[in-house]
């Protein structure tokens, strides 16, 4: 039995951290959460998650900008970063391109999130 894949969710809204945790854990992945853009680099370096879900609308430092910063860290070269947001898909698509994220997941689309995570990290259910 291999170690379960780890997903780190970064979001300032505790409600979304709670639902993301519940939904993603149910897929058999390990979930860690972080409720601020600050110290998130440390958290990622420390945790070395397989995938980061990054909220876009966060205080002081927008998630897409944060993504750009994380992308400049050579150590995180193999970490997949997905934008996780309630924003419009068109805006998310633009942000993905501009800030070199690996993709995006829409907050309300639970089915889409499950499918995407399973195909990215391997289905365990």
């Amino acid at each position, binding site marked *: 039995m291999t170690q379960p894949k780890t997903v780190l969710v970064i979001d300032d809204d505790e409600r*979304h951290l709670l639902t993301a945790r519940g939904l993603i854990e149910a897929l058999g992945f390990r979930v860690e959460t972080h409720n601020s853009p600050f110290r998130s680099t440390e958290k990622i370096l420390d945790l070395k998650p397989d995938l980061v879900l990054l909220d876009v*609308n*966060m*205080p002081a430092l*927008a998630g897409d900008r944060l993504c750009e910063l994380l992308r400049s860290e050579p150590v995180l070269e193999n970490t997949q970063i997905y934008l996780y947001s309630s924003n419009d898909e068109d*805006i998310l698509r633009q942000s993905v391109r501009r800030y070199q994220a690996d993709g995006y997941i829409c907050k*309300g689309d639970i089915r889409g999130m499950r499918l995407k995570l399973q195909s990215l990290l391997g289905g365990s259910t």
Partner: protein
Amino acid sequence: MLKLITECHNLDNLPVRDLIDSSGSVSPETPISVLAERFFTEPELDALPLVRDGFPYGLAVRNKILTTLGTRFGFALYARKPISAIADMNPLLVHHDESLNGVLAQAMARDFRDIYDEILVVDEADKYVGLLSVKRLVIEQGNHLAQSIAQRRMALERAAEMQKMNDAKSSFMAHITHELRSPLHAIVGVIELVKMNFSQQKLDEFPKYINLLSTSSANLLAIINNILDLSKIEVGRMDVYSEDFVLGDLLQEVLETCQVLLGDKPLTIELDCAQPQILLSGDRGKVRQILLNLASNAVKYTDRGIITIAAEGGSQLKLSVKDTGIGIRTEDLANLFVAFNQLEDAKTRRYNGSGLGLTITAQLVQLLGGNISVDSTFGIGSRFDVQLPCRQPSQPEENFP
């Protein structure tokens, strides 16, 4: 606006009718000496049309006639002859409906010696109506061009303003979209968790889930109400009602709502009202909304300390909400109550909410004929003051001097 510009800008559409001078004419048989005399005594007279029975026959141009007469033997040769002998008997004729640009083009297409000669204008029946001065046409054309350039600049500025407004509106839309979806997505997520856990008979998290569902729905409802209120105010559909109410009851109601919003923040909310029993007459619903908006903002932006809600009734209802929250930066104060402007970039906002609360509050205060002011130090706290005209039912207006 646009129509005006096209009209003025397009000189092709500007008829020459208004520029006509129909002050005088002479018959083609007039002796040259008579005409010469007129040109000598009337220095302003540049040209005279030759007209018979209402129809144009030719044009006597001042400098041409005088030049001819001024040549050697000119006067002796011509003085007694009719003007038709030396006048231009084939002058440019235009219709009175022709456009300024069209007429000028024809005038300029003439032989260079005739370019500045006056132009005869005729009506539908080819009857003479007046003269056009080429100089005047050129000046008019110049004026209109200058005017149209100014108007074009104005239109461009207006368009830039509209663009700015549109940008603000689309950033507002993006913002509102996120604000509406975010609590709904939380609700959708929690419901999914409820379903999953229920199927496994894991009920221990349910109180937390239900609490989340209730706060998220309340949050969503508040945002929707704000948007609807703002649009109602914007189209002027908001009516003002009057009813009697006890000031203290209203304060208590606001306090209770705020206590719910408070959650587990180490925050105290105080009421400061010397006469809670005072009976006031006014639009209770709107007064409540104003106070609640300010108080819930205070709760939202204050992490610890004290929030004081103060009220004083009388001929004016004075309300104030004071907090020990994050405060407002001086540069942000000016745009605090302005719709759209106060919206920060949706991506860098620190607090949830539609960002419309203060805009609506200010609009409501205005609707009730009052005023609102804010005093804030960044990092220390804010104080909002509202004065509303008010009446006490126990002291009807007639009793006032």
